[in-house]
């Protein structure tokens, strides 16, 4: 193992609804911590400067750029990643809407876009077009030209409303 400049310590937080404990360092970013896990690589790194949003995760339901957060900041908090969205392998309504609308191409921004949408629809189950555009406008997708993503978000909102009695 490479030598570390800073000592390791144990970190406890809630990851996708389940308590986890992981050894980490003060210099480790949340993204790197998540990606250390074999089942944690859906959180993707692109700009690593909190600009593109590819690495977006939800921390206590707030979208955050995990590339630019220290791991220790999530001590005791709720972290939601794309891996936690599918319930027993079944896609969430937002994931299903992205799949059915072909709201992705290369897929590198997709987890971030989906988590952003989850956060938006938690706050506003029926967002108007300007609100959707405003939210999606915080992440970069280089492939789609965004229209299919905007349509998927509206479709996801519909699905979620219909699924809620």
């Amino acid at each position, binding site marked *: *193992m490479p030598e570390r400049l800073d000592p390791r310590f144990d970190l406890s937080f809630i990851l996708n609804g389940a308590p986890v404990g992981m050894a980490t360092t003060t210099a480790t970013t949340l993204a790197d911590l998540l990606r250390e896990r074999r089942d944690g690589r859906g959180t*993707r790194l692109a700009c690593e400067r909190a600009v593109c949003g590819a690495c977006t995760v939800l921390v206590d339901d707030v979208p955050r750029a995990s590339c630019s957060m220290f791991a220790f900041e999530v001590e005791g908090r709720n972290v939601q990643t794309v*891996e936690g969205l599918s319930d027993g392998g079944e*896609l969430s309504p937002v994931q299903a809407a*992205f799949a*059915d609308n072909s709201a992705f191409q290369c897929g590198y921004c997709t987890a971030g876009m989906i988590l952003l949408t989850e956060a938006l629809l938690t706050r506003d189950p029926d967002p108007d077009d300007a609100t959707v*555009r405003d939210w999606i406008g915080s992440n970069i997708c280089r492939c789609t030209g*965004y229209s299919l993503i905007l349509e998927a978000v509206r479709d996801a909102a519909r699905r979620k409303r219909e699924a809620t009695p």
Partner: protein
Amino acid sequence: MTEPPLRTVGRPDRRIDAGEKVSGRAVYTTDIDLPGMLHAKVLRSPHGHARIRSIDASAARAMPGVHAVLTRDETAAIPMPVYGYFIKDQPVVATDKVRYEGDIVAAVAAGDEGAANRALAAIRVEYEPLPAVTDIERASDPDAPELFEEPPIGIVPAYGQGASGELRPRRNVCYRFSYETGPADAFAECDRVFEDVFHFSRMHHLHLEPFVCVADWSREDRIELWSSCQNPFPVRKEIARIFGIPENRIAVRVPYIGGGFGSKNGCKTEPVALALSRLAGRPVRFCLTLEEGFLTNTQHAAILKVKTGVMADGTLVARESEILLDSGAYSDGSPLVAEKAGYRIPGPYRYRHIKTDCYCVMTNTAPAGPFRGFGGTQTSWACESQIDMIAHRLGIDPYEMRRKNLIGLGEPFVPGESGMDSDLREGLDLVVRELGYRRRDELVNDGPVRRGMGLAIGFKDGGGVNKPALARVKVSTGGDIFLQCGTAEIGQGAHTALAAVVAERLGADRSRVRYMPVDTDHSPFDQGTNASSAVSVMGQAVDRAALAARRQILDFAAEKLDCPADELDLADWEIRRGNEAHPLAPMVMGHFGGAGWEFVGEGFHKAENSHAAPLEAPCVFWEIGWGGAQVAVDTETGQVTVEKLFVTGDAGRAIHPLVCRGQDEGAALMGLSQALFERMIYDGSRLVNGDALTYRAPLADDLPADFRSVTQEQGHGPGPFGAKGMGEGGMLPVASAIANAIYDAVGVRIAELPLTPERVLAGLAAKDGG
């Protein structure tokens, strides 16, 4: 006889990669993690141009955690430590000189990236700075400092009728491509001759997955490489040549690619990672940052001088062009881009005489290479701006001017070429209708805000040059289908489209088709995922492979059922004969035994070589992007708002309509962004906006209020079910359509991208003053 309805082709089913991509399970090269894997980082030149006096890496080598250091001392032992497409001019690490800010000077493999970076900081390099040439004009000066003093190592490919190429025709030019057809004296017959100059800006691809590879050369006689790369077979060949290793000792594997837009062609991270892996005896991951991506590959800035002769009624007669591409410090794919830019500058119009010279000018900036549109973006910008300018000068509506000169359906582009496979007028008329172009006189101006509309037709030959394709389709005893071919999934939806073709031919649900991993040890040979060739070229091979497998299955069943094969049909892994259904699995096991069998079909496609065709083989298909824009120009601030943007391509046949739409819209937004704001900004040899924050990439907020695309299906394509290629066309018309709309709104012609408020205001001032 009517064809039976299609069950997969043309349906917007979930993409084959949807489940993996929306759940986060899709594997990219960035996710590859091997036991004992080290991490590489590189030291880059702080100078635009300098001679290397000395490199002292002894302190770095002694640092704990450092497993290998690579400098020119180590690459001296590599058989041919330079790479490039036509010209081998880019060193694995710098040897005598550095030629741009960001040129790789040394590399370190360590336990983690932090340790590698600390070691790089301990490397001492002594430079002797040299004068830098940082743009086309300065590099073209006969007395300019020279990037390469030694003669080039390279080739000029075979060209056909009217075309030629030359290595290093003059100082700081690595390649010239020329093309000529028809009598040069045609200009003498013209009523008017117009000469205009256009400047094209430079973008970075900004693919979100960085340049990355994982190289394992821990065993001397075996190289295993995972790479985010569009052309694994040519990369294998290049690695074999660089390191002197037989190709059958090298495996290149391509997982999902997180975007490329042309940049991930050819060697990028691979040579450094492999050299380090050999030195360290451990696998090495080399992942660039997004900022380093800007220093690795870019689009070509260009100066395009276009001289067009025309009759008073608007009939085009002759066009001569000189195109200067800013190729950066190393040739990369520039000679190929020069071929295409030089070839495409006439646009989709009829002339009696065409003459073009295109030069790759070397500058002390990041290497330029393939970028969506591949020279066609540059030429469409110049061509479609000038057509508009000429129309206005002659007092003809730009729409009528285009309509009059467009190449007809089936008409060859130039002598020896294939015929046009789209009805160009049909597409243009669609734009005119969708945009409301004929009612543009009714556009309302609000005080200082003036409105206008513009049209453009982007044009390129698609499918690559002389490109072969080979595919294999295997069907198991149980009817499960394996598709093997070398087309990488870079986001464009190729795996979905090609699997749909196979499913359709074999009467199977697409869920029965698995697209096998791209791996040079197992996949049939392929030249690369580029040039919108997946459906148009590989699609033909895949289609033939599926039909060959189908033929074997039907022949086998015919023998078993003792009837002619043409009485049989194949659906859902049953043989259908009239109203009878015969399940195939028991039939197969009855013949081959319980362990079963696999039917294997192979399919090959390549355009015929032809010396009559300027590029030695006729174009596979013509990729057309028609576009129209409505803009509002604020004459007080110069701000241009694109209120409407409409683009349309011709898929021939849309194998997957949403994939086609996504390609056109993604390309169109790239065009819009280039038109209005996105560009690499150099201050001398220093790139000043090479990071995500200051490089302005388009966001959802940048979409025009009315942004639409229509996928035409004109049905004339050479691919399966009449399909053509997609993916680049949507970008081509956008910048010129917007520039033409600005002219329509305020009478200001901007011939330089991007169309900034400053340029609009300067144009307005010149118009008022003049």
